[in-house]
């Protein structure tokens, strides 16, 4: 019964298993993001206070959300690698880091562009903004720590440990707008109770969230395949996979 689960720890199995899924995931992500962009940027009504400037939410919020998702994925995968000594765990963690860092950067840049006309400043040392910046530095730290050690296996373990330590930042980012007085507004969608947005604005946002999420999984699978080929380059199955 558990054989399918144990097989997930085998690099050749995972390599073959995720490959065919990638085109389907990319197609689903393209549909959702395409719908979200058109519906959000063209058909959704402007906001009563921010006018058309609010539309940056359709890129900003999903990126910010995915920056947290990717970090959690990286930390959990690293912990699995660390505790159960499963190579796939480290490979997933290594594959997720640059994607998450990119989402963090997109969230910070789009937020700054929106902040200038709306708040009156590109940047403020606000709890939410500062903790998101720390997340970016954590990503950079995890990525460079992995490369900093000569022994690849030790680099993996050190990076996983840093990722696990840094995961405390994830709830801090999410709840920063509740715990402290902050310039950044509170959660609109990701909270219990009724969301503070009408359906015509909310639906494209949810489509973008799902689309970004599926896009993340697709890119993660692709990067994981490359990572596995690189890590297992001396194994027989890689030679066979490359030949075919």
């Amino acid at each position: 019964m558990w054989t399918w689960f144990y097989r997930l720890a085998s690099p050749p199995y995972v390599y073959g298993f995720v490959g065919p899924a990638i085109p389907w995931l990319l197609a689903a992500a393209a549909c959702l993001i395409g719908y979200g962009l058109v519906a959000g940027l063209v058909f959704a009504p402007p906001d009563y206070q921010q006018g058309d400037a609010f539309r940056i939410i359709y890129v900003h919020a999903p990126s910010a959300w995915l920056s947290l998702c990717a970090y959690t994925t990286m930390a959990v995968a690293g912990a699995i690698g660390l505790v159960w000594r499963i190579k796939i765990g480290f490979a997933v963690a290594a594959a997720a880091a640059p994607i998450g860092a990119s989402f963090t950067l997109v969230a910070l840049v789009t937020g700054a562009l929106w902040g200038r006309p709306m708040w009156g400043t590109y940047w403020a040392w606000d709890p939410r903004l500062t903790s998101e910046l720390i997340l970016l530095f954590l990503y950079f730290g995890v990525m460079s720590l992995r490369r900093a050690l000569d022994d690849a296996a030790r680099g993996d373990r050190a990076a996983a440990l840093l990722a696990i330590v840094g995961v405390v930042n994830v709830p801090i980012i999410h709840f920063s707008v509740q715990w402290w007085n902050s310039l950044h507004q509170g959660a609109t969608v990701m909270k219990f109770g009724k969301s503070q947005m009408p359906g015509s604005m909310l639906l494209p946002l949810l489509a973008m969230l799902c689309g970004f999420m599926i896009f993340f999984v697709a890119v993660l699978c692709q990067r994981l395949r490359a990572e596995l080929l690189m890590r297992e380059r001396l194994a027989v199955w890689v030679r066979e996979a490359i030949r075919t």
Partner: protein
Amino acid sequence: MTPRRKRLYVVLAILGGVGAAVALATMASRENIMFYFDPSQVIAGKAPPAKRFRIGGMVVKGSVTRASGDLTVHFVLTDFAHEVPVEYTGVLPDLFREGQGIIAHGTLRGDGEFVADQVLAKHDEKYMPPEVAASLKRSAAARPASEGKGLE
């Protein structure tokens, strides 16, 4: 205890330890992490005297007065418990308007007026089309004034 289980406990212990340390540190420095003070905190003397700090609150309706000739603006900030008058010279952000939450950065003058050199508009988490806002405002005007606050 198997080595695997031991490693699991080590990871959980690190997570718990770091979590507790960060929780204690943030609780201890709560005031420093606060991006701004409420008018009530300022009136109570909790804001640092003779030092720059930020004050955040709602602009009281009808309190905004502009001096003719220059960009000086006077308005009153409230947290619905206490009020602090603010003076600011400069360009205001798009979202600045009466009834809107804003954050001002500056110092408290001896006479109790806050002299700001930067004003940031704080946005809330509500989004709605202009027609909905207009109809909400109309129905709020029909009801007693206490309801529908923050929609203006």
